[in-house]
């Protein structure tokens, strides 16, 4: 038998003997062990040595408590005080997160009310209300317009962040180039133009012709928020219109349809697909795929804050109740 096996057997034997000393064997087990003990002197000696240990430990005189362990009220209340001390801080934190949550929620609802309400139903061009063109998000919208103005002044194409649908983009670019290049545009001022009316509606009536491109950029920047849908139906059509009118009214430019298309085509190099149809048929404007990204994030934030507030509220209630 291996050493390990022998040790295991000895352990098992001690277990039986130990339980025997405590009277914890079943009658059958006891009978078996007693039969073995009767004929095995070693086992008897082993039992006695084990019994001796038990007796010795049992006879250790008990030690007395060196002092009294009486409790005082302070001993018993200490941890509750800690909880109590935390209670005001927890309540304050609850109020803070709750307030923040409400503010954000209201802000989100307002933003969703404007953006979502206008964006859901594409209105006919003639009935364009002014309301949908208010800045989507209060201070942020203004900022957008400012940056748009700056962009317009320097006459650099907007940064790639502004994902204006390409068709409209081309329209805006075209307008810019036309205004630069054509003094003859003044001739056209009086003539009511479908695009003009739409644009004045879009721009909220503000700004002269020089300001117009800036407004356009502003719209483009805001469009991410969900206004693209509104602009989608009209933008390709007036473009065609405009190109034609330019072609006829500004001879100094030698506006063959080809050059017109060139003018249009140059700024929009990134995407040839949007302008691959020179006939000007309405090209379906690609919607930005991520939808309105900022509000969505805000909703998550509102939810997270609400959850945090709830947890803090529970904690502070428990802290106050602790005695």
């Amino acid at each position, binding site marked *: 038998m291996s050493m390990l096996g022998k040790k295991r057997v000895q352990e098992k034997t001690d*277990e039986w003997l130990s339980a025997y000393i405590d009277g914890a064997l079943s009658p059958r087990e006891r009978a078996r062990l007693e039969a073995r003990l009767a004929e095995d002197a070693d086992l008897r000696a082993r039992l006695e040595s*084990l019994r*001796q240990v038990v007796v*010795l*430990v*049992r006879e250790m005189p008990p030690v007395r408590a060196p002092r009294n362990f009486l409790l005082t009220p302070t001993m018993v209340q200490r941890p509750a005080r800690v909880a109590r001390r935390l209670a005001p801080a927890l309540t304050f934190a609850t109020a803070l997160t709750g307030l923040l949550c409400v503010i954000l929620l209201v802000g989100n609802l307002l933003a969703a009310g404007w953006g979502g309400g206008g964006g859901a139903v594409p209105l006919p061009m003639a009935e364009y209300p002014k309301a949908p063109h208010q800045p989507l998000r209060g201070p942020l919208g203004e900022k957008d317009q400012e940056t748009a103005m700056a962009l317009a002044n320097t006459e650099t194409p907007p940064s790639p962040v502004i994902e204006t649908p390409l068709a409209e983009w081309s329209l805006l670019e075209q307008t810019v180039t036309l205004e630069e290049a054509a003094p003859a545009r003044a001739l056209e001022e009086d003539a009511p133009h479908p695009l003009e009316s739409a644009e004045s509606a879009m721009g909220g009536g503000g700004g002269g012709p020089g300001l117009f491109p800036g407004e356009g950029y502003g719209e483009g920047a805001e469009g991410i928020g969900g206004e693209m849908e509104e602009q989608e139906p009209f933008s390709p059509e007036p473009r065609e219109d405009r190109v034609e009118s330019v072609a006829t009214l500004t001879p100094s430019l030698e506006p063959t349809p080809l050059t017109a298309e060139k003018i249009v085509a140059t700024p929009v190099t990134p995407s040839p697909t949007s302008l691959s149809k020179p006939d000007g048929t309405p090209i379906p404007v690609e919607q930005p795929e991520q939808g309105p990204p900022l509000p969505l994030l805000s909703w998550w934030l509102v939810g997270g804050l609400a959850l945090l507030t709830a947890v803090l509220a529970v904690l502070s209630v428990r802290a106050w109740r602790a005695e």
Partner: protein
Amino acid sequence: MGKGIDEPSLVAAAQRGDLDAFNELVLLYQDRVYNLAYRILGDPSAAEDATQEAFISAYRHLPTFRGGSFLSWLMRTVTNRCYDELRRQKRRPTVSWESFGEMDEEANPFLVNGHPTPEELAQQAELTQWLQGAIQTLPPDQRVVLVLSDVEGMNYQEIADAVGIPVGTVKSRLARARARLRDLLAARKELLPRAYRLEHEYAGKEARPGKDG
């Protein structure tokens, strides 16, 4: 306890928040509680701390006491405190099993006198001290079970309830603890008063060769 003290009504009063009633229970049981803590921890100041903490914990958890033996419940609380303490101690090593067996009297901190003990000296005291040291060399799991069984006189089921282990585990841990103490004792037979010496010593057959007659 037969001291004419109405334990159940004291417990009931303490459960209602009567600290004076609870303190009467403290006075009643503090020796038992301290003894248990001392035998498990082997250190007077650690035992004091465990005792005090156990009473505080018991008072706070009185609402969870659902009748039965208050003493058993109290002992369970102390045992848990001692377990916590042993877990804390685990980082710093205590006396090891091997070194305790090898130690001579000079080096053994659990022996009062380094010199051969005269018969007239309190042999029982020395033996007790040695035993206390020997118990400290046991692994905590075995130590707790041994103390609950052989110091406190609890049965297997009570120990199983107090420690939260199956009865079978109590059985095997107890057997191993006793066997270890037996082996330690076999090497130190001179500590035993004559009355305790066995006629035929089984352990002597397994003990190291240098045993005395």
